[in-house]
């Protein structure tokens, strides 16, 4: 009863690549089946690292409801935890771009399936596929634009990327449920080692498949399957090389030729990477000059300290990185200043459950943050006054900034002027 398909891509003879087929699709699918859950989990952990349950100030998606079911108090051990997680999340996202493109290329004939809807089941599955493809591209695009500070997407990155991830993963799980069997059968249908030894003259189409991926009228091959896998792999490798250095740091930072934080701003003790300069957020020397005071609140009357008084307190050292949600991070920097735990004791709350940290930065996101008791008590958590043997630079938070192990960078508040400890 079905009418003939319209001309063009709806006709089976239109798609002519001789290497398109279930085996090739399944190889790309397998890589994504490993990579995407890893990105999803590291993404969820990144959200948990902000301690959104502790205060609305920490939560960019307060209407999350049950999507925050897994949240837990973020640890301070190991101190490089956030650096590793977010470096993996972002670098993996960049590296998987060619695999994703190849996977989508390999299944494009299915977009033009005719008739467009064969049954209720087929219609629902296609709707789910729209959410899958729209979702995965939406997630990759918002992520990749955000790490380059190209804020053209509609609204808060946190909202879009977090809720978009849930929309995507709902469709992803269905896709895996429906296709896992077909993927494993397809992978078993050909030997990878034999495929890697097959030259162009013996590159033949796969046998016709139920999905119609294999070309009905294949063109002569111009590339082997080995070549196609190699080209995609080379794309991933190249992206890895020009990106990963901004997260690994050290000498490798300079190899991240195209990554946003691939070099040091300036030279000297304060020449490590900056998330937002003082000028960019409206912090001026007028706000940080000799009139600057730190106010410490807790039990009893507020206490006021000058910077000299803070420097006269016992100074402690900690070697900790700055690690950003954008995936880049600094090497360990040598911070010094009073411990947050000592300041809590001065405020009359040595066992404080939380502290509200306020910046002199003009109002905006991340100018106030709440840290948890375990973060206050960690002996490496400091109100840093100096770094690498010098005073903090204005761009790194002079006169004083918070530094806490395993904390996401934006929660290591710069230009602090008030700490409010609470039981």
């Amino acid at each position, binding site marked *: 009863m079905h009418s003939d398909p319209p001309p063009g891509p709806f006709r089976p003879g239109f798609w002519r690549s001789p290497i398109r087929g279930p085996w090739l699709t399944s190889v790309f699918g397998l890589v994504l089946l490993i990579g995407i859950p890893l990105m999803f989990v590291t993404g969820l952990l990144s959200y948990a690292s902000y301690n959104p349950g502790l205060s609305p100030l920490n939560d960019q*998606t307060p*209407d999350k*409801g049950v*999507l925050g079911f897994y949240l837990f108090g973020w640890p301070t051990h190991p101190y490089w935890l956030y650096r590793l997680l977010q470096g993996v999340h972002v670098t993996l996202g960049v590296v998987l771009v060619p695999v994703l*493109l190849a996977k*989508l290329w390999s299944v*494009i004939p299915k977009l033009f399936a005719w008739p467009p809807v*064969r*049954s*209720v*089941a*087929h219609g*629902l*599955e296609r*709707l*789910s596929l*729209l959410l899958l*493809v*729209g*979702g995965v*591209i939406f997630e990759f695009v918002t992520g*990749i634009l955000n790490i*380059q*500070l*190209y804020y053209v997407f*509609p*609204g808060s990155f946190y*909202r*879009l990327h977090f809720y*978009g991830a*849930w*929309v995507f993963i*709902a469709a992803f*799980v269905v896709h895996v*449920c*429906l296709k896992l069997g077909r993927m494993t059968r397809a992978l078993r249908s050909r030997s990878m080692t034999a495929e890697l030894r097959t*030259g*162009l*003259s013996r590159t033949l189409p796969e046998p016709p498949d139920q999905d119609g991926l294999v070309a009905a009228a294949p063109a002569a091959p*111009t*590339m*082997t399957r080995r*070549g196609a896998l190699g*080209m995609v792999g*080379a*794309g991933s490798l*190249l*992206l890895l090389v020009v990106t990963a250095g901004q997260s690994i740091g050290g000498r490798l930072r300079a190899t991240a*030729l*195209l990554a*946003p*934080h691939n070099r040091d701003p*300036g030279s000297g003790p304060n020449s490590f*990477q*900056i*998330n*937002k*300069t003082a*000028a*960019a957020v409206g912090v001026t020397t007028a706000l940080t000059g000799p009139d600057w005071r730190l106010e410490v609140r807790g039990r009893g009357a507020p206490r006021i300290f000058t910077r000299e008084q803070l420097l006269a307190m016992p100074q402690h050292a900690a070697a900790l990185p700055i690690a950003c949600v954008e995936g880049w991070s600094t090497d360990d920097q040598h911070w010094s200043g009073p411990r947050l735990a000592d300041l809590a004791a001065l405020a009359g709350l040595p066992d404080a459950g939380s502290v509200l940290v306020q910046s002199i930065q003009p109002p905006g996101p991340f100018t106030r943050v709440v840290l948890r008791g375990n973060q206050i008590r960690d002996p490496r958590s400091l109100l840093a006054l100096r770094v690498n043997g010098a005073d903090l630079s204005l761009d790194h938070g002079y006169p004083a900034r918070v530094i806490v192990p395993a904390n996401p960078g934006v929660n290591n508040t710069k230009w602090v002027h008030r700490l409010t400890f609470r039981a």
Partner: protein
Amino acid sequence: MARFVRWYGSGPLHLLVLIASFALTGYAMVRLFAVQPVRVAIWFVGAAVLHDLLLLPLYSLADLSAVDVLRHRAADRPAVPWINHLRVPAFLSGLLLLVWFPLVLRLATPYPGATGLSYSVYLGRWLAITGTLFAVSAVALALRLRRSRRAVPAGNASGPGRGGTP
């Protein structure tokens, strides 16, 4: 059961999994679309449309045109298939641009002010990488051509075949 399968087009498990998935989708979508719903929807659907109906057709067309042009020049074609010496560096260079275009094309206006870094380095580096990729590809082709000329005496039309096993 058989009647259900005939009406629905698949087994009941298929339906249950999809309904469970759509419930989660709905829950997340209400929140995704809570702010600027129209623009978010355009971005979400637009992402799929832009890829499937613009990016993919464009690069396929470019690839087909290149293959076609080379085929019609059979007379002066080198004795080894060389489309991939064009295809691979073009793919790699395009991929780098696709991922890093906001920096390469200096579109990310907050970048220099926020990071204290200039974005002037990116365009030059992308061009340098592109040049290197094509140059390496050219050298590889030159080596293959020399090898094939040595293997076959000049003037032999049959050539080494299109085997392509290097």
